[in-house]
Structures are given as C-alpha cells and as structure tokens.
C-alpha cells in the first residue's frame, strides 16, 4: 500500500517534470524574443558596454545583482556566526 | 562533426564522474571526483558558448568548493566529530 503510494507520487512528479522539460525550447531558439532583440539592438549604446551580458547584469538588471551581493554578504555573516562558536574553545584561529 | 564528438565525450565524462562521486567510499576521493565533475561541466558550458558561466563554474565549482569540501573532511572524523 505504502509502496504503491510512493510509486504514484514518483510517476506524477516525473510526468510534471517531463511536461515542463518538453515545453522548453531546444536548439538555442527561445520562444519569446522581444526582450532579447531589444537588448541586442540597443544595449551597446544604452549601457556603453561591449559585453552585452555585463550590460544586462549590471545595468538593465541592477536590482538582481544587488540582491546577489546581499545574499553573499548574508552567507558570510551566517558562516561567521557558526564558526565563531567552534573557534572559541581554544586559541585557534578565532573568527572574533 | 568534431564538435559533436567533443560534446559526447564531455557528457559521457560528466555521467562517469557523477557516478564516481556516488561510488567512492573514501570521502576525499569523492570530493576530488566532484571537482573533476565541475571542471568537465565548465568545459561543457564553454562548448555551449557561455564563457561567463564557464569561468564562474571553474572558479567556484572546481576551485573553492573542492577546497571547502577537503577542509571539512579533514576537520572531521567519520562519526562527525571534530578531529
């Protein structure tokens, strides 16, 4: 009973992932190209950067990069909190 | 044609190194196999013409993550305590 329940969940999840995967477009041709075309046509003049990827990441999508930097800062904060208790027992390399 | 062969070799290497991570009993060997997996993945990203992602994967996946794994494995024993 329990086994068939698990197999049923597995089949449903596999079908969902397969449908989502089949809806992706293979071969490098995205389904909707309006934003891509605009950025390729105007990005070099509007951001002043020859590298369109950097232009998109740091100019058009600046808020994403700000969030990424904040996530990295928070990760270091958490790691410092964890390793502070570990280093306190001896005079090992203390993280303050 | 040569590009297809390189793709197939890289993908086969990815699957083999991923299986090696699962198969290894020694944790250090598994960490090194994971580093090889990351390196092959960065080569595959480079083949797919995404050099940004490739250099990030090579730096973080193959360099920093392997170092962090090795340090963590050397700092603990098999029962999870500190050495």
């Amino acid at each position: 009973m329990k086994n068939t329940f698990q197999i049923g969940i597995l089949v449903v999840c596999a079908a969902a992932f397969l449908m989502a995967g089949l809806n992706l477009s293979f071969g490098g041709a995205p389904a909707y190209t309006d934003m891509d075309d605009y950025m390729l046509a105007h990005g070099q003049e509007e951001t002043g950067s020859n590298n369109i990827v950097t232009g998109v990441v740091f100019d058009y999508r600046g808020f994403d990069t700000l969030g990424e930097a904040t996530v990295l800062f928070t990760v270091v904060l958490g790691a410092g909190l964890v390793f502070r208790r570990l280093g306190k027992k001896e005079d090992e390399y203390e993280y303050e | 044609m040569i590009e297809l062969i390189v793709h197939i070799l890289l993908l086969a290497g990815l699957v083999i190194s991923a299986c090696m991570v699962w198969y290894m009993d020694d944790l250090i060997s598994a960490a090194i196999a994971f580093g090889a997996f990351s390196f092959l993945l960065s080569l595959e990203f480079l083949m797919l013409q995404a050099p940004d992602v490739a250099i990030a994967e090579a730096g973080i996946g193959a360099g920093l993550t392997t170092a962090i794994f090795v340090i963590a494995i050397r700092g603990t024993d098999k029962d999870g305590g500190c050495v």
Partner: protein
Amino acid sequence: MNMSSLVRSGGANIMMPFILVYGFYIVVHGHLTPPGGGFQGGAVIATAVVLLMVAYSRAEVRASVSKNVLKNSETLGLLLFIGTALLALTAGLAFFGNWLLDAGTLFGTPVAFGINPPGDINTGGIIPVLNIAVGIEVLGAMGILLLAMLGGMKGDAE
C-alpha cells in the same frame, strides 16, 4: 622543510602572480570581453587563497592573509555598490541609473553600435565601478569563508 613542501611552495610562488593578474583582468575588463564580470573575477582571485592554503602551513597562511583586510574589503565592496547606485539619484535618474554614461568624464566615452574588437576601457558608465565593487566583495566573501573553515580545524594541516 622537507622536499615536497619546497616543491609546493615554489610552484605556488610561480603560479600566484598569473592567477592574480588574470583575476584582476577579468574584473577590470568586465564590460569589454566575454568572460568578464565582477563575480567571476572575484572567484578567480579567491582561488589564489586556496593555492596559498594548499602550499603553505596554517601558521604561514594566518600570517600572510589578513582576516580584517578581507572583512573590510567585503563591507567596502557592498557599500561602494549601493553608494554608486544611490548617487544616480543626485543626477536626477532612477536608482541604478547610469549617471556616468556618455558624460565625457571617468568611463564616459560613448560607444557606437557595432563590432569594435579591442574596445575602449574608458566606456561603460557605472558598469566598471560596479564590477570592481562586486569583485572586491566576492573576493572578501570567499576568502573569509575559506579562512573561517580553516579556523575550525584543530592541529596543523600539514
């Protein structure tokens, strides 16, 4: 000092400048060449810290890499990022507006549409500034994570 540690430290001394120069090149040329950007360059520079930890003993790493410098560089990177974005408000633009673009000052040369392979490093507006900010932030974050992990180990890593 035995033979193998001599080989390791000698190899690390030869490799170190190349890794650092490559990382700074990726950070500074982020708006010109395709494998560029602050995040990737910072990760490549942080790999130099890994190389130091591979080659030298823990006391030597502790003496040569300062934890305070890494911590301050991380905070400074995030503050420079947010400050550069906030200064756009004084120029009458929105938050993250490109207030240095085409201004003729620092990084202010206009770019025409088309293929110009060598590129001009004096372009891009605030993008190079943000690249450098994210680069030193990622460098500090990764280095401090590695040093914190190394500090959790007891006994020498030799």
